[in-house]
Structures are given as C-alpha cells and as structure tokens.
C-alpha cells in the first residue's frame, strides 16, 4: 500500500490538533480579585474584635520587658471579687446543682456562666513578670466543647492571643470489663466487633496557666504587672465554668523557664538503678481524655497491632484521624514494681508529614498511694512536664509501623543524635502519663510560616488594590515606585520561607520530604515576583492559589495525627531487642488471607447490634439514608438510651409493660424508599425524608399521617402527636409537612439561611452588618468601591433570597394559603378552614401586587446593582471579596470551619437582612426540613405504636442534642448538626455568641408549604429571572408570562388528586364563598 505525503501530513496535523483539544486545562478560575483597604481605623461594630485586631501579639507585648528581673517569690491567691453571670456557690446544696461529686466541693468556689464576665482585683507587691493561673472545674451539663475565655487586664487586652484561652475538660470512657467477652473492657456486638464505650465528663479541679492555645509557645504566658492594684477580667467565649481562685505567680517558678533541663533531671536521680520489668499500656484504653474527639479506633493494617482479629473490628489503636488538635491529650495510669529509670517505648505509625516529624508532649502526674505525696505534677494533680525537653518528644516519619523509644534529638557536637528519655518511677506510686498534642521544636518555624502567610496576604491585597481583579500582564504598574515596601516584602518573605525550609530540613536531619516542597514552590514564586516587578501582574493569580496552598500546608503540619498502638514502660538495654513492628512475612500473609476470606462472611448491616431481638422479624424496621458514622451513632444510642426511654419515660411502654422495643436500624442508600414501598417492603420508620418528597408520598397514599383529621372529622394518627409537635418544633418546619390539616412526619433537621459577615473587613470599612435590604443596597456603593460585593446566593433554581424577600414583605407563594395577603382581612380561622383551605395551593401567588413588586426588586439587585449570579461562596468569603454572604447556618459554617481556618474568629453570622413593614422590621428566613416518616403499609397497631414511640424518642430534645454532640465529638467541629428540635439547640456545641444568633433567627422563620405541582414553580421563576437578566425584559412582564403556565400545571396536577379533598380552580375561577 502506498502512503502519500498528503495523508501522512494530514493525519499528523489532525492528531496534533486533537491532542491539544483533548488536553484538560487545569480548572483554575482565571483570577480572583479583592481589593481590601487595610485601614487602621477601628469600627464600632464589635469593639472586642476590633480591639483584638489592633492589639499587639504576645511577642511584641513581652519584648520590652525581656530584661526585667524576676520578682521575688510571691504567690498570690485571690478569691473572686465580682462580675456579671457570676454566682458564688454557697454550701453543698448549691454545689450539687453544678456537680454530682460532693467531695469536689470547695469553699468559695464561684460559678461563671457561659455568657458572663468575672473580675478579680489583685494587689501586686513588686513590679515584674508574672504567670496568671486559674484553678477551675467543669460543671455538669456542659457540651463537648472545651471551656474558652478571653482575658483582660485593667480593662485592656494585653495581647491578641489572650482572646482564646482554652481550658480543657476531663472526660472518661465507661469501660465495662464485666460485660465484655474478651475482657478488653469493650462491649462487643453479636459479630464480635467492639462498640465504642460511652464517654462522660469526669470533672476534676485543675490549674490552668494562661498559655498559647495555638501551641506556638511551649512556655506559659508572662504578664508584666506593675506594683499596685490591678483588675483581671475573664470574659466568656463558651461553656460554663467553676473557679475557686486565681493564682498570680512570679514568672519562672513553673513551666519551661524553670522546669529542670533533662540533664538536671537526670542528675537528681544519679545512682538510681535501671528499671526492670515491662508495663504495657494499651493506648486504646485511655483513663482520661481532654475531649471526646480523642477516641479509640480499629486498625487492621498490621497483624502485630494488639489486639487484632482477621474478622472482627477490635479497638486496638488511638489516633488515626482524631487526636491531632493542639492541646488534646489522653492520659494513662500505671504503676511499676521496682524503683528505677525507665524508658517509654511506643509502637506507632506516623505517615502524615512525609519526611518530617510530629511532636508530642509528655506530661506526668503522680500520687504516692500511701502518703499522698506528689513527685510529678502540681499539688492538685495537674500534670506538668518532668523536664523542659519533654515538650519536644518527637515521632519520626516512616511509611509503616515503628517501635521506638520516646525521646528527642540533641546535638552532641558532631551532629544531631537521637536521645532517649529516662524517667524515674518507683513502686507504691500511681503515675499518670499524659500524651499531649503539641508542636515542640516545630513551633517556632511554624509560627514563622504563619506570620509569613499573614504578610503575603496583606501584600496580595495591596497589589489587588492597585491592579484590580485581572491585571494586564503587559502593563507597567510601577510597583517599585508606588509600593516599594510590597515588592521588597515579597522578596523578603521569599527568603524567609526559604530559610524556614532549610531550618525544617536541619530539624528533620537533612530529609527533604515531599511535604516541604510546598514551601520551596511558594518561596520561588515570591523570589520571582519580588526581584522582577514586571512579573507581578502575570504571577498574581498563582500567588492567590499558592496562598491557599500555604494555608492548607500550615494546617496539615499543625494537625497531623499519629496512630498509636501501645506504650511500654521498661528499660531498654539494647535497641535490637525492641519488638518487631510488623511481624514476619508468614504472619502477615496469613493475616491478610484470613481477613480476605472473612470479609465474605461479615454482615456489615448488622454492625453494632448487640441484641438478638434487634435482628428478629418483630423488630421495628428503621431506615436511615445517611453515612456510616451517623448510623453507628444512632445504633449505639438506640442500644443505650432507647431502652431507658421505654422503661422510664414512655407512657405507652409503661402502661403495656414493655421493657424494650427491638429496633433494626438499616443504613440504606437514598432512592431505595420508593421501590421498597412499591414492593410493599417499606420500613416502619424512615429517617431523613425531605418535606417535598414527604408530601408527594402523602398525597399518593404512601405515607401515614402522624396527626390530623380525615374527611369525616375522625382523628387519625396519634392522640398526643399535636402537643408533641407544638412543644418541640417550629411552626415553619411543621408547615412544610402539613397537607389538608394532616401532618405527615416529624421534623428531624431544620435548615435556614443566615447572613455571614467578615467582621474584620466590615470593621476596616467602618460599617455594621445591614439590618434591612435597603441598608444592604445603601452599603453596596461602599463595598463596590473597594472591589467587594455581597453574596445573595446563586440564582439557579429558586433562590432563597427571593423567598426570604417575598415572605418578609408579606407575600405568599400560594394563593388561598393562610399567608395569602389577598384573603379577606377579617377572616376567622374557622371560616378560612371551611372556605379557603381546600383551595390552598390551587393557584400561584406570584401575580399578587406584593409578589410582583418583590420580584422586581429582586431582579433589579442583579441587573441594576450587579450582585453576582454565580460564585464559589466559601472561597470568596475566605478571600474577603464577599464580606457579606447569605448561607445556610450549618452547611456553610461547617465548610468554613475546615476550609478557611485562617479566618477563624474573624467572621460571625447574624440574622438575615429584613424588610420594613407596618409592624416593624421582618427578619424572617426560610426554613426547610427533613423528617421522620412512617411509610404506608398494613402494619399492626402495636408496630404503629412502637414506631411512634421510636419517633418521639428520636426527635426529642435529649436524643437530638446527644446525637449532635456525638457527631461533633466523632467527626470534629465541622460536623455541626442542624436539629429541628428547638429545645435542643441550646445543648449543642455552639459558642454562646453563635447560639444567641441562631436562636434570634429561629424566632423569625417562615416556610413555603408543599402542594402538588410545586416542582413547576422553581423552573418558571428561574426562566422569568433569566429572561429579565439576559434579555432585559421587565421583570414583572417576564414573570406574568409564566403565571398561566404554572396555574395550568397546578390545575392538571390537582385534578389527579381530586379525591383527596384538594379542590381545583380553572382559569379565571375563584373559590366559591358561600
């Protein structure tokens, strides 16, 4: 066959063209702009935040006093003076309100509420630097959060970091050695899998020395106090707290500054023999933990991990993805049988920071069981480091399990060598080992990165201010003339990052892991931009994305976890004799093979079931379309709390002598419900069905009403249901699941929008969050002048903003609904129910005067005021480009908490902008909910009653708050739960300020009812909006065009259900008023 040049060339060219077209272009946005004016003026919107933004850092605060001599050894313990939300606990009786432990009662203890301020007046004898400490106790009924306070001295903020003082609580797991089959203390389910034990607060008196919550400093904060009288004030950020004294101690007595060095510590015990014997601490069973997010988990990656099983999930490690925030700790108690010097040998896996190491702090406390003497720790049992180097205990990187002796690295003159720590222990003393997450020797460098990040961010904003969103790469902006400091600063930070990287490499023993390459990338970019100003415009968008990368990098380096299997307390003579970290080849192969075959026989949907009855056919069938974690939590709550509920609270169970209702909880995928109902195999209770679907099922007879009256006026559902619903839920949530007077579900979650505000930016602009939409529009020129904007939500589908504006203005989506503004003004509820109720939803309410006006205003916001129709919310909020943004109070919050850690503390949410009406400003936000539903089937009366008991237990205050808190405990602060139960909100782990904002918005909620055909509304409103936006049609005209199409569809759809009691209205027809 002859090939012509033509074909060759053509095919070549063609393939090149296609190769290029097929290459996927990286999905970056071209450039992000923000143009924030960094003014130093402070606004009045939030004094404390503004003040904190302007305050010095601790380093700046303490620097002038560095040479100040230590004052004499005076310890002042001052009883409490005064304050708001402060309650002096008088006597044991009052103490019992706060604690179940009488023996913890202390004379003069004071209760500080979670929204108060406490003040102490102290007299300082000598000018000097002091530590400030508090003796505190966590009262009962607190949430999973640690106690947080902010500190003022003489009414002033000493330094910015004093805003967050974190006082950890003491939690304990309830192991049940009697109930556990393998003697591990963990209860197993029917298949032998361990079940997470309950975690409860075990309050103890502890002493808290003010120190850095971020972990950047290993020593305690020092405060410069002049001789004379001072006020010390603690403002509450979150959680109640009890304190009995404040301790002002001259700096130098405890902490790194005065804790002995390791050498001094060793000298103390010179001549003590080496320890003998081995005490194994299985770390998955901590005695105490700092918060419930420190939990045991199951690791099956190695046969050596103890205990392990090829078939069951046994708890054998701690850490993995939890136990990685600064300040979290787990405590283990042990005793030794011979006096001597001991090592800690740890088996662990540290794969988080490649090429780097992770630091943990070893703290100890001890008590002599006979004399009560304490060798380690403070007199009240607060643990301390035995020597200063214990902060720097390092855990090296390796891609597999390792067994090593805990220690640090020291320079012996020839280079860095590992040094193993020896500790002195003796028999008859109970020791408690605290393993705390810290930054150790990494702290200083990480803080430098953090400072660099702040600086680069500021430079970035300055450049944007000059160039705008998308700078022209070919234009000369004269950066060097206009802002020489920025150009210089960029180069300087480049050098900084490079030196930080070198320092890290030195710390890590010359390793250049992949993890450090991020620093190099940013450093190179900064060097280019800083040395050649003409590169700045072209590289600006890279800088933007690198800022994000650097933020993430810092976050990762700070919170990197370690999986710990066990700690041995023993003396290691020869490191070659350390246990094998991995097991030999045959052990491993056999383990893998057996686990593979066992995987065929493991029934994952039975995970967590401890009771045979829960698997029987009689068990209540409950389906949950959610995640594995959620299902595990509900399962364990059903096991522990639901039976209690049946025994003690449920009237039905008590009356019928039922001790326990078996529940088969099944985790299913969404979309399973419809076919299952069709096949008549539906569950008894379905958890988490959205309201629209609930009503869709209800109208087609596939959901049973919880409460209501049928056509003949007979009551259906459960007699006590209405009271229960009214007591626990907001009307707005109930509204969405009501049809023709019947309620078809019980709300489980309720979501609504709130307004997120970047307070730092608003303060710089000297503005407050807008109260009304008019305020927002008035604020807009100011925002836009600075290249900022506000986010009103994407306009695709039915925008919440439009709904909010409609309902605030008094419009209603549906005609003849109870909210309809065009109903006769003086109509009584009875008359409404008789005449109009059956017509509710028969026509669309968009053609009323109010609605048209609102729709017009809404469209104008996008056409005339240039609000953005589509944007990446979290990203623009993070960069500050949209300092005001409407977003769901839980979804966006959860996203920001993990995604934008660098703006933590700089934003808040508040009620949505309101609309001025005749009765004042209406702040309503729109609520949506998901519900617990009983799909229709021919279940027996008993099963129905069981299902109702389950639903009540599941949605009531206690279970909802417990569930919300467990979610946060298990997954972290980004797993906030939007409970629908209005009484449960207070018990969830929001800070006081957040909780106040949420309850304020919860007082102002509306919702749109669901009627047949509601799907048609969103699309036609969207069409109308797009027509107004794209083609400039008058919004009112655009909307009116679609009204008849909507009404026709509603008419057609309602005809389908004419038997149900929904009356139809044809074109031009009005309800028949007789």
């Amino acid at each position, binding site marked *: 066959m002859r090939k012509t040049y033509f074909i060759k060339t053509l095919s070549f060219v063609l*393939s090149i063209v296609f190769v290029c077209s097929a290459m996927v272009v990286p999905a970056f946005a071209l450039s992000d702009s923000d143009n924030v004016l960094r003014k130093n003026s402070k606004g009045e919107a939030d004094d404390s935040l503004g003040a904190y933004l302007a305050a010095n850092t601790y380093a700046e605060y303490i620097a002038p006093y560095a040479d100040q001599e230590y004052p004499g050894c005076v310890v002042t313990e001052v009883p409490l003076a005064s304050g708001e939300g402060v309650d002096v606990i008088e006597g044991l009786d009052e103490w019992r309100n706060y604690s179940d432990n009488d023996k913890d009662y202390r004379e003069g203890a004071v209760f500080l509420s979670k929204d108060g301020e406490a003040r102490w007046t102290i007299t300082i004898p000598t000018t000097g630097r002091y530590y400030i400490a508090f003796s505190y106790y966590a009262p009962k009924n607190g949430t999973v959060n640690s106690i947080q306070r902010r500190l003022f001295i003489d009414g002033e903020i000493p330094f910015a970091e004093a805003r967050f003082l974190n006082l950890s609580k003491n939690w304990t797991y309830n192991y049940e050695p009697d109930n556990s089959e393998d003697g591990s203390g963990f209860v197993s389910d029917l298949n032998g899998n361990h079940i997470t034990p309950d975690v409860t607060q075990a309050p103890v008196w502890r002493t808290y020395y003010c120190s850095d919550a971020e972990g950047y400093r290993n020593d305690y904060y020092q405060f410069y106090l002049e001789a004379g009288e001072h006020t010390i004030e603690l403002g509450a950020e979150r959680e109640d707290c009890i304190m009995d004294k404040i301790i002002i101690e001259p700096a130098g007595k405890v902490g790194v500054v005065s804790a002995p060095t390791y050498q001094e510590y060793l000298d103390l015990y010179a001549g003590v023999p080496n320890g003998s014997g081995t005490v194994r601490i299985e770390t998955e069973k901590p005695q105490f933990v700092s918060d419930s997010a420190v939990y045991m988990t199951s690791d099956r990656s190695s046969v050596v991990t103890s205990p392990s099983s090829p078939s069951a999930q046994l708890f054998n490690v701690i850490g993995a993805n939890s136990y990685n925030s600064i300040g979290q700790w787990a405590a283990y108690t042990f005793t030794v049988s011979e006096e001597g010097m001991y090592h800690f040998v740890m088996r662990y896996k540290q794969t988080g920071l490649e090429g780097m190491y992770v630091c943990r702090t070893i703290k100890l406390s001890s008590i002599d069981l006979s004399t009560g003497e304490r060798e380690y720790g403070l007199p009240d049992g607060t643990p301390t480091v035995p020597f200063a180097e214990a902060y720097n205990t390092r855990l090296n990187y390796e891609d597999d399990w390792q067994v090593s002796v805990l220690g640090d690295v020291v320079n012996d003159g020839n280079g860095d060598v590992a040094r193993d720590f020896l500790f002195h222990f003796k028999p008859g003393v109970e020791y408690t080992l605290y393993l705390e997450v810290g930054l150790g020797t990494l702290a200083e460098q990480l803080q430098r990165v953090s400072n660099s990040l702040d600086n680069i961010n500021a430079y970035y904003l300055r450049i944007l201010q000059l160039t705008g969103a998308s700078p022209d790469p070919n234009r000369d902006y004269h950066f060097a003339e206009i802002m020489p400091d920025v150009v210089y600063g960029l180069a300087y930070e480049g050098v900084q990052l490079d030196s930080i990287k070198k320092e890290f490499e030195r710390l890590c023993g010359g390793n250049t892991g992949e993890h450090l390459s991020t620093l190099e990338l940013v450093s190179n970019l900064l060097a280019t931009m800083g040395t050649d100003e003409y590169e700045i415009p072209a590289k600006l968008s890279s800088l933007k994305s690198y800022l994000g990368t650097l933020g993430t990098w810092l976050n990762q380096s700070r919170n990197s976890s370690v999986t710990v299997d066990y700690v041995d307390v023993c003396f290691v003579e020869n490191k070659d004799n350390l246990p094998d970290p991995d097991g030999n080849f045959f052990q491993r192969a056999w383990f893998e093979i057996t686990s593979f075959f066992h995987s065929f026989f493991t029934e994952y949907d039975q995970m967590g079931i401890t009771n045979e009855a829960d698997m029987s056919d009689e068990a209540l069938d409950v389906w949950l379309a959610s995640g594995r974690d959620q299902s595990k939590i509900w399962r364990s709550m059903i096991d522990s709390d639901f039976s209690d509920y049946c025994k003690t609270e449920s009237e039905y169970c008590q009356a019928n002598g039922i001790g326990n209702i078996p529940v088969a909880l099944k985790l299913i995928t969404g979309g399973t419900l419809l076919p299952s109902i069709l096949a008549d195999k539906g569950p008894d209770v379905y958890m988490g069905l959205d309201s629209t679907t609930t009503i869709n099922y209800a109208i087609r007879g596939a959901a049973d009403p919880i409460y209501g009256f049928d056509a003949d006026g007979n009551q259906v559902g459960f007699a006590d249901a209405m009271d229960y619903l009214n007591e626990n839920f907001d009307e707005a949530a109930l509204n969405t699941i009501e049809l023709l007077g019947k309620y078809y579900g019980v709300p489980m979650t309720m979501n609504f929008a709130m307004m997120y505000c970047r307070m730092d930016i608003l303060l710089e602009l000297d503005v407050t969050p807008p109260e009304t939409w008019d305020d927002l529009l008035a604020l807009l020129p100011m925002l836009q002048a600075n290249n900022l904007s506000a986010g009103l939500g994407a306009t695709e589908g039915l925008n919440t903003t439009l709904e909010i504006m409609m309902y605030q203005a008094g419009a209603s989506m549906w005609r003849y609904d109870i909210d309809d503004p065009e109903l006769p003004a003086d109509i009584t509820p009875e008359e409404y129910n008789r005449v109009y109720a059956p017509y509710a939803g028969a026509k669309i309410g968009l053609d009323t005067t109010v609605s048209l006006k609102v729709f017009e205003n809404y469209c104008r916001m996008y056409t005339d005021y240039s609000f953005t*129709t589509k944007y990446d919310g979290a990203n623009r909020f993070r960069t500050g480009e949209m300092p005001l943004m409407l977003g769901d109070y839980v979804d966006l919050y959860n996203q920001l908490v993990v995604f934008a850690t660098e703006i933590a503390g700089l934003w808040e949410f508040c009620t949505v902008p309101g609309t001025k009406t005749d009765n004042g400003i209406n702040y309503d936000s729109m609520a949506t909910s998901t519900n617990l539903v009983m799909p229709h089937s021919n279940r027996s009366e008993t099963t129905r009653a069981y299902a109702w008991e389950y639903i009540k237990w599941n949605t009531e205050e206690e279970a909802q708050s417990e569930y919300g808190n467990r979610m946060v405990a298990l997954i972290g602060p980004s797993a906030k739960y939007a409970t629908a139960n209005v009484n449960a909100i207070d018990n969830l782990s929001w800070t006081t300020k957040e909780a106040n904002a949420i309850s304020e918005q919860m007082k102002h909620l509306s919702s749109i009812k669901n009627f047949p055909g509601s799907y048609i509304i969103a699309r036609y409103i969207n*069409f109308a909006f797009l027509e107004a*936006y794209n083609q400039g049609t008058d919004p009112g005209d655009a909307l009116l065009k679609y009204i008849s199409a909507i009404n026709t569809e509603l008419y057609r759809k309602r005809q389908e259900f004419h038997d149900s009691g929904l009356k139809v209205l044809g074109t031009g027809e009005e309800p028949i008023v007789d």
Partner: protein
Amino acid sequence: MSKKQETAKRPVSKGDMTRAQWTWKEMKRNKVAYAMVAPFVILFFVFTVLPVGLSMILSLTDFNMLQTPGWQGVNNYIRLFLEDEVFLIACKNTLIFASITGPVSYFMALLVAWFINELPPKIRAVVTLIFYAPSISGAVYMIWTTLFSSDSYGWINAKLLNWGIIDTPILFFQDEKYVMPLCIVVALWTSLGTAFLSFIAGLQTIDNSQFEAGAVDGVKNRWQELWYITLPNMKPQLMFGAVLSITQAFGFGAIVTALCGFPSVNYAAHTIMHCLDDYGGQRYEIGYASAIAVVLFVIMITCNMVIKKLLSKVGQ
C-alpha cells in the same frame, strides 16, 4: 405408497409434519444449542424485552409509582401529541441534536479512524487513547462548565470582561442564545467513543492483499480505495457505529443537565430524555413517561432501519 404410509407414521421431512411438530423436533435435536443460548436469552428477556413490553403497557395507564395504576387507553398519547407543548419543543430539540451530532460524529469518527490508521502502530496506540479519552473519562465535559462558567472568573467571561467586550458576565449555560450551540459542540467533543474504536479495529482487519488486488484492478485514488475496498469490508463495524451514534444522539440528556441544569432555560435544550426524566422522576407520572419512552423507542427503531438501508448502499 407403502413408503408414504411409513413416512406418515414416522415423519422425517418438513413437509410431513405440522409447523409446530417440526419446530419441536428441531428444538429437541438442537437442545444443546438452546441450553447454551439460554442464559443470555433469559437475561435479555427479563431485563430488556420485559421492561420494554411493560412500559408499553404502562403507557396506557396513569401509574404513579406508588398506587395501583388505572387504565387510560390512549389518553396519554393524545395528551402527548396534542396538548403538551413542552414535548413538542423537546421533539424539535432532539431531532436537531440527533441530526447534527449523529451524522457529524459518525463521519468524524470514521475519518479520524481512517487517518489514525495510517500512523505507525506505536504512535497509533497513543493517539487512539487520546481521542478516546474524552468519552471514557466520564464527566470530563465538566471542563466546559469552567470555560463557560457564569461566574465572572469563568475563563471566557474573565477574558471578555478583561478585554472590555462585556461589562457583566454572560450566563452562557443559562441564556437561550447560547445553550443549544454550546451543547452541540460539547456533544461532538465527547462523541468519539466506542464507534471510533470499532472503526479502528475494522480498518485493521482488512487484508492488504485486497488493496493490492484493487491497485491491479485499477483503483485510481484513495477515495476509490476507501469506497470500494475499505468500507465494504467493515460494514459490520459501520452498522455497529451507526447504531451507537443514533442511540447516543437520541439519548443525549445527561450532558445537557450537567451543563445547563434541569430543565434548561425556557426548555431551550430540553430533549425527549429530559421530558422522560421530568415526568418519571419529578412528577411521579410513570404512565405518561412510558408513553414518551415508547415514542422515543419507535423513533430510534425507525432511524435504525433507515440507516441499515443506507449502509447497504456502501460500495455500490
């Protein structure tokens, strides 16, 4: 005669038996073959023939997924053709899509396959992968949403804003003007799929001796070679590709939904598939949706027959 009587007792030829008898006999004789084909036939029947049949029946009812269906007769079809304006829009859009993307992607696949076939084997393998990539890597068309994002940072919008051509971002996927052309472009981009692969395979099966014989017999240029030798040789692959192109073109819905949302603005890119989703998924009107499905089914079958006719002309 006696012979005939004998055969009447023990029939041996087809003419001696009734049709049913003959069939049964043949079936018994070939029982091994039937056993072998059974697994496929059963699965095919249960999962393909039965649903098609069922939806034909359901299209005559008002089934809503949850309640017992009621008989509607041909009401659904009457409503479909006479009352439902959206369906007519959808029909129009579908035909536009199908008539543009179907043939264009088909010929594009063929041409590209033909060109690529000329490349040396190693390069051919790489280039084939690159062409095939957009259709295997699932949602890769999402790159278009980044390019044409309504956000002012979408690539095209950002550039246009930067050059001062527009002052507010264009909602490309939400503006009737742009929706349809954009969707067609994206559809073409992703359409070099399985058909393309089968063409390449078909091209490679052709024996070189045929080309030599063609050269001897007086083939003048490559087009003649293509028409008289290459294409007739790969008719099965052509048929396969055609069927695929048609189903793809008619079933083209997911990409539109992903790019323009559901439904697209003012139904500008609403196809029959979307109608089906709308009634089946959102409105719980399975009976009506089945009627739509049946119509779509008929259209596809018809198209297939037409294609078959056209393909039989290849090489003549």
